[in-house]
């Protein structure tokens, strides 16, 4: 059997040899006159080129670097070439393998072992419970290699993946260090948990990968369709991200040092009024409302530098800063034929671009394996990490530091003459709720630490070749600890007189035990099979313990321990558990190396569901046809590889709102009774329950096409998918008479995501001095709500300022913006009269459309005014190498998505004592002065600030995601330094963003704190622009 495989591989090699040889001739002849063999005085060298298994590679190109001189290997992988000098460098390349450079030196017989390129056709890709050759894949799998991850200087894997795989939308919902990153594979399929399943070295987890150091990662596979992900069953509906960490390689021991240092800043600040203009606008608002000119502030001319009231604080300058960022990583690795090892130690630290925020991660990894006989292999992957996040209050809310910086008035000083925090000024109507944002950021201490140990150990037993039994036991220990201290302070004339310390802790432990057998065999010449079966079990316990205490003797950090408080104490704790038991199976069948078939099945049992619907079965089938292997195709040398794929399957999402959705729990409430007014407990259910809840089911079909052409320099992949979430868990509005505001969760909703993913890549011939690679991807996803049970639409679960800004309706994409339609401004009284439906309006107020034409402007005239879902997202990248320089750039963009600029709602109205954005200076002040910015008024009788199309802005953007320029020291210098590799680089993240959006940052998707809202901006912490200087050193 083994012989047959080797024979087939050999045949493929011959084919590869022919292709490469022809291609070499073709490209060479197109550009220059070949001089393969030069005669004369030069030194001749012979050698052979083999693959990683020692099988000769015929047709590999061997070229002298910096020249046009070269040759190809013969049928036995041997070559002979004349060298101009001893220091000449040979560049050896072969389709599907990493290009190597060899300094010949004085040696005369060179052995070159080529390593498969990970995402090339010959390369293998990590898939669920195994590996598969790229060319044999029938599912839709995105792949990101170590090299591509390295382009970005970002702290988390999620950020490093942004824009790199079609169909995977990654959005920094908060730019706060350590903040939330939303990863959406093929759209938003549920109002519930949309996060993909992460599998880290075989360990499945839903608790994210922010603890994983990107520098430790060897590759990432993203399983997008049912064929690829059904093996993960009830957790795969949102796709699966498989992270494989680096391993030691056989050969010499290596030390790698990676280090960078730089700084970051906000890309954008918003123009707001200075104190002079603020007073001017405020007084005008009073006059416009028929009120006496507001006497409190006096003359605007008295405000500003050098005037009576010189304070003119630019709050954004006060809260934003240039913040340092640094990353240092040491990796020691090595191995032999028997064992391999890798140790790494990483330190990553940054300060946030907003004062008071920051993030630090210390991580260590130990990966190793050893064979203690030719049948047994054991190994361990273990990572330890600790992260520390300093959080500033309430990103994405009215009480956030950034929103505070936008609305605090400019005449308020950061600190007053007494050294107290600057605060509220003026009589009742001038008292804002915003607070001093600098005080908010610096004084409210909120530190969150996590300690995570994630690892697994495995035993592989291979009694005969191609038959493997593997048992793997993994354990995830994730301990989180939070400390939040709210000090006493004096701010202006108000004060906080009671300090408080809250400590939170949670322990999230999971064990997973997986046992699998796999067996590969052939039946005859044309039929290859690969089967896998297994049983897995998993158990998770989540415990929390929280406590708080009031009244500490002072505000110093040394006293921030619960025992030091003297006032009210409060505590709480919870525990919840779940367990999963699953059976998995897979069959791969390959006929004549061109007809591919795969079937997967997983049967999952989950403790989360009642006994009657505890088990679910998630099958998938897929097929592929490598048309380029057919005889009729072999005549063309334009297309080297052509594969059609199709898949269909069923997936589940068991990550629902509770571990016990079926239980009708009583909630504890309190009420004080008695002369002492002691609080006593009461019990009542506060949410309805449903014993029949089960997982959300997703049915997905995928059609794909993979092409390599023009000597495999051009790669093209296209996928079309339809992903139907059925049984989406929804709470429907219940009549209030039920005592609940919503029904229990029921499996009733349906959402369809369908889309197209395209990826294209061009790689220039690798033996030249100037090599480059350009690529891009494009994703278009259409989201459509198909069914919402008994209702046609669902309001947002969030009310902002008494209004709900989004609605989800059957037949439309989820989370559509909802409100009035603004139609310019009334220029004069005749306009008001002519419009008719806004009798109280005055010239300068907004004209709202009576959309239902009933002669009254009321709630019924609200309609859909915007869509947060992009028409498409895209990314383009280029890498180039010239001599010792390398360069890479990546663009990322989103087109056609709207953003609800919630900030306008608060900063435009003069009835609030908040600062305004500078555009208000272009307000309407008389007929013809403006048709877009309404007059300023104190009482806003026309409700100009009501939710309307005025708040909807185009959120399209194009971002220069990262740019990197590197220089590697030449071989000659390296030899003197006794260093294998030394590279310096400069790199910029988020260098520039092209957008017309007026907020801090257009990168926005899920709205924090909401299940239903997308794209609502309430002063989101923007993604930072960073600039770093880095070094890579290999010894």
């Amino acid at each position, binding site marked *: 059997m083994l012989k047959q495989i080797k024979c087939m591989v050999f045949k493929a090699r011959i084919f590869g040899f022919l292709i490469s040889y022809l291609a070499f001739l073709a490209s060479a002849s197109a550009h220059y006159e070949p001089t393969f063999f030069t005669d004369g005085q030069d030194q001749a060298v012979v050698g052979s080129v083999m693959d990683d298994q020692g099988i000769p590679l015929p047709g590999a190109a061997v070229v002298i670097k910096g020249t046009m001189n070269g040759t190809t290997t013969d049928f036995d992988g041997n070559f002979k070439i004349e060298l101009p000098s001893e220091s000449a460098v040979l560049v050896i390349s072969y389709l599907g393998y990493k290009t190597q450079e060899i300094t010949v030196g004085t040696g005369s017989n060179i052995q070159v072992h080529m390593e498969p390129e990970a995402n090339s056709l010959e390369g293998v890709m990590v898939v669920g419970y195994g590996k598969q050759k790229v060319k044999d894949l029938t599912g839709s799998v995105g792949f990101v290699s170590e090299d591509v991850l390295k382009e970005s200087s970002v702290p988390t894997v999620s950020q490093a993946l942004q824009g790199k795989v079609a169909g995977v939308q990654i959005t920094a919902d908060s730019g706060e260090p350590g903040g939330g990153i939303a990863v959406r594979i093929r759209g938003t399929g549920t109002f519930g948990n949309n996060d993909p399943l992460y599998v880290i070295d075989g360990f499945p987890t839903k608790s994210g990968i922010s603890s994983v150091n990107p520098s430790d990662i060897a590759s990432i596979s993203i399983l997008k369709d049912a064929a690829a992900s059904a093996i993960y069953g009830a957790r795969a509906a949102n796709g699966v991200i498989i992270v494989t960490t680096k391993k030691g390689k056989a050969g010499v021991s290596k030390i790698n040092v990676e280090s960078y240092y730089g700084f970051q800043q906000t890309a954008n600040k918003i123009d707001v009024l200075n104190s002079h203009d603020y007073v001017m606008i405020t007084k005008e608002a009073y006059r416009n409302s028929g009120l006496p000119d507001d006497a409190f502030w006096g003359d605007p001319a008295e405000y500003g530098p050098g005037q009576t009231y010189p304070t003119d604080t630019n709050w954004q300058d006060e809260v934003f800063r240039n913040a340092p960022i640094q990353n240092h990583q040491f990796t020691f690795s090595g191995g032999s034929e028997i064992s391999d090892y890798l140790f790494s130690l990483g330190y990553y630290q940054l300060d946030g671009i907003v004062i008071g925020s920051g993030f630090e991660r210390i991580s260590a990894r130990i990966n190793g394996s050893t064979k203690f006989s030719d049948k047994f292999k054991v190994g361990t992957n273990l990572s330890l990490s600790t992260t520390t996040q300093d959080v500033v209050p309430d990103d994405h809310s009215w009480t956030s530091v950034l929103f505070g910086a936008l609305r605090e008035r400019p005449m308020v000083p950061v600190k007053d003459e007494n050294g107290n925090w600057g605060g509220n000024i003026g*009589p009742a109507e001038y008292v804002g709720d915003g607070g001093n944002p600098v005080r908010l950021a610096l004084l409210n201490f909120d530190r969150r630490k996590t300690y995570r140990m994630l690892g697994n150990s495995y035993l592989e037993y291979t009694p005969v070749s191609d038959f493997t039994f593997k048992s793997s036991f993994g354990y995830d220990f994730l301990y989180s600890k939070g400390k939040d201290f709210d000090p006493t302070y004096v701010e202006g004339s108000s004060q906080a007189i009671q300090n408080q310390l809250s400590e939170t802790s949670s322990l999230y432990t999971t064990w997973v035990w997986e046992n699998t057998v796999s067996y590969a065999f052939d039946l005859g010449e044309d039929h290859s099979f690969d089967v896998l079966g297994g049983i897995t079990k998993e158990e998770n316990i989540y415990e929390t313990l929280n406590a708080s205490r009031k009244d500490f003797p002072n505000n110093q950090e040394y006293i921030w321990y619960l025992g030091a408080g003297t006032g009210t104490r409060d505590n709480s704790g919870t*525990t919840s558990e779940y367990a999963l038991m699953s059976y998995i199976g897979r069959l791969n069948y390959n006929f004549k190396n061109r007809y591919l078939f795969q079937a997967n099945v997983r049967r999952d049992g989950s403790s989360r569901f009642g006994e009657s619907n505890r088990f679910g079965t998630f099958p998938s089938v897929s097929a592929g046809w490598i048309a380029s292997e057919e005889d009729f195709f072999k005549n063309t040398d334009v297309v080297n590889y052509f594969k059609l794929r199709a898949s269909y399957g069923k997936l589940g999402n068991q990550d629902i709102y509770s571990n016990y959705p079926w239980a009708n729990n009583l909630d504890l*409430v309190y009420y004080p009774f008695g002369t002492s007014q002691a609080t006593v407990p009461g019990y009542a259910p506060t949410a309805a329950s449903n014993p029949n809840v089960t997982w959300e089911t997703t049915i997905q079909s995928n059609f794909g096409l993979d092409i390599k052409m023009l000597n495999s320099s051009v790669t093209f992949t296209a996928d079309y998918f339809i992903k139907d979430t059925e049984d989406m868990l929804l709470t429907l509005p219940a009549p209030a008479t039920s005592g609940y505001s919503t029904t229990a969760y029921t499996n009733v909703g349906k959402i369809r995501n369908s889309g197209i993913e395209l990826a294209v890549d061009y790689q220039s011939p690798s033996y030249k001095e100037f090599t480059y690679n350009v690529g891009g991807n494009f994703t278009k996803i259409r989201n459509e709500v198909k069914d919402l049970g008994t209702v046609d639409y669902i309001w947002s679960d969030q009310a902002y300022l008494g209004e709900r800004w989004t609605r989800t309706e059957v037949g439309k994409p989820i989370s559509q913006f909802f409100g009035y339609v603004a139609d310019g401004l009334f220029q004069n009284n005749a306009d008001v009269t002519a419009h008719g439906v806004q009798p109280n309006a005055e010239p300068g107020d907004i004209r709202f459309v009576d959309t239902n034409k009933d002669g009254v402007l009321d709630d019924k005239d609200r309609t859909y005014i915007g869509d947060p879902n992009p028409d498409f997202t895209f990314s383009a990248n280029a890498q180039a190498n010239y001599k010792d320089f390398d360069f890479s750039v990546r663009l990322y963009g989103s087109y056609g998505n709207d953003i609800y600029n919630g900030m306008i709602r608060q900063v435009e109205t003069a009835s609030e004592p908040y600062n305004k954005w500078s555009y208000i200076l272009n307000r309407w002040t008389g007929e013809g002065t403006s048709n877009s910015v309404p007059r300023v008024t104190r009482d806003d009788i026309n409700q100009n600030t009501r939710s309307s199309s005025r708040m909807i802005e185009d959120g399209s953007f194009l971002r220069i995601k990262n740019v990197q320029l590197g220089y590697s020291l030449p071989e000659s210098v390296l030899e003197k330094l006794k260093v294998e590799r030394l590279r310096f680089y400069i790199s910029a993240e988020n260098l520039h963003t092209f957008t017309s959006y007026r907020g801090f940052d257009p990168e926005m998707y899920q709205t924090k704190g909401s299940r239903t809202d997308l794209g609502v901006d309430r002063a989101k912490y923007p993604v930072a622009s960073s600039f770093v200087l880095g070094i890579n050193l290999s010894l």
Partner: protein
Amino acid sequence: MKKYIYITLLALGLFACDDSFLDKEPLGSLSVGTFYSNAEEATQAVNAIYDGIQSYTVYGAMSIVEDVQTDDAEKGGGGPSDQPGMDQVQKFIASADNHIFVDKWKAYFVPVFRANLAIQKIQEMGEESIDADVKKGLLAEAKFLRALCYFDLVTRFGDLPIVMEPNSPEDYDIARSPAPEVWAFIEGDLKEAVEGLKVPAELPDNDLGRATEGAAKALLAKAYVFQKKWTEADPLLSSVINDYGYELSDDFSGIFGIGNETNEEVIFQVNFQTGGASDREGYNRNGWMSPRSSDIDWGGIGFMLPTQDLVDEFEPGDIRLEASILRDGDMFSGDMYKKEWSPTGYNCRKGLVAFDEYTAGTPYFVDNNYVVIRLGDILLLKAETLNELDRTSEAVNFINPVRIRAKVPTIDADISKEQMREALYHERRVELCFEQKRYFDLVRWGKAAEVLTAKGYSFVAGKNELWPIPQSEIDINPNLAPNNPNW
């Protein structure tokens, strides 16, 4: 080869186990199925009803809404866009979608549900698990609280769906019953409550604050008054006044202040207390009423601002003015009140807590209870009842004690019935301002449109006497249609 496969599959089989691995029960929480097994749990089920009426929207902060929509107060706060929904309610320009209506409607049905669940489950309890008297008392408490909610609902929304048991999704289409049927339902509950509740004197110290027989009678009497069933109301009012030891308090402010749980005038109140197991138990309306000023350490967000019209209603020398309203120059909490702190020049004083009485350091969490029914109200209702029964000269005996306490001249016994009505219109306004009484008095007197339109409010006669059923609720349950007249 096969040998290995069999061995391995056998090994795999050992790892499989039965489904009991997947049995995970909720930890640390109680469930409806197993609760209600003894008197303590039954009591806790009833406690939860009290928690329901103590909520933010029922008798918490949002209890200001009913007075904001009268001539007694303006909304205040940070301008029209601060609580815009309430602004629209105040201006009588709200639509049936206004969140105030939605919130109020929803909030009242939470304690109704809890009462229904408690009633159902306690009914099912046998002698072995609960003493018959205890059971009767708890059922009476639950019914009192259910009646209180329905009383507030029917006076705000008119015809109502009568929900008598915890309903399941099959009952979500319940239709509205005409108001008279709702009143009959309320009367029925209260009659049972009167039977089952303790008199205040019998209430153990630990249970102070629970509904009593006196409270049930007072509420039943009020239900009769609202239906103009004067003859039924009369004896009940007498009983409340005479049989339970309620006294007019000499300290008018004290009725509403810290420590009012033991006030002799209070018949039923909703308790607030900071610093217990949950601070939220102290979140009442105080911070909302506190002046919106940063000059003082007791500053809040300045809602429910008294109008000049209300200030002018007080007779000279009426001590209730100072006790109810902060005016320029008044001393409070060690500070001198400045009229600049409020657009109307006034802030509400009734029930306001001074800084040194804060327990949590913020004006939002304080310990004074919210008074729902008190003797002052009952005396005036008694006077009104007698007057409507053409016993005007006797009525004087019930209005005058209230006036004597207020240090204003007494009313002569020989005034006409109409004069007595006018006197009561005035007296109830100044005695009960900011106690959620004004709006409903105006409506039941049939004077709402007349009084409010005369003062420039956009009150629409035949419409604004009731709030609308929230449109969103009609959307969910079309049987709630049609909405109230002209909504």
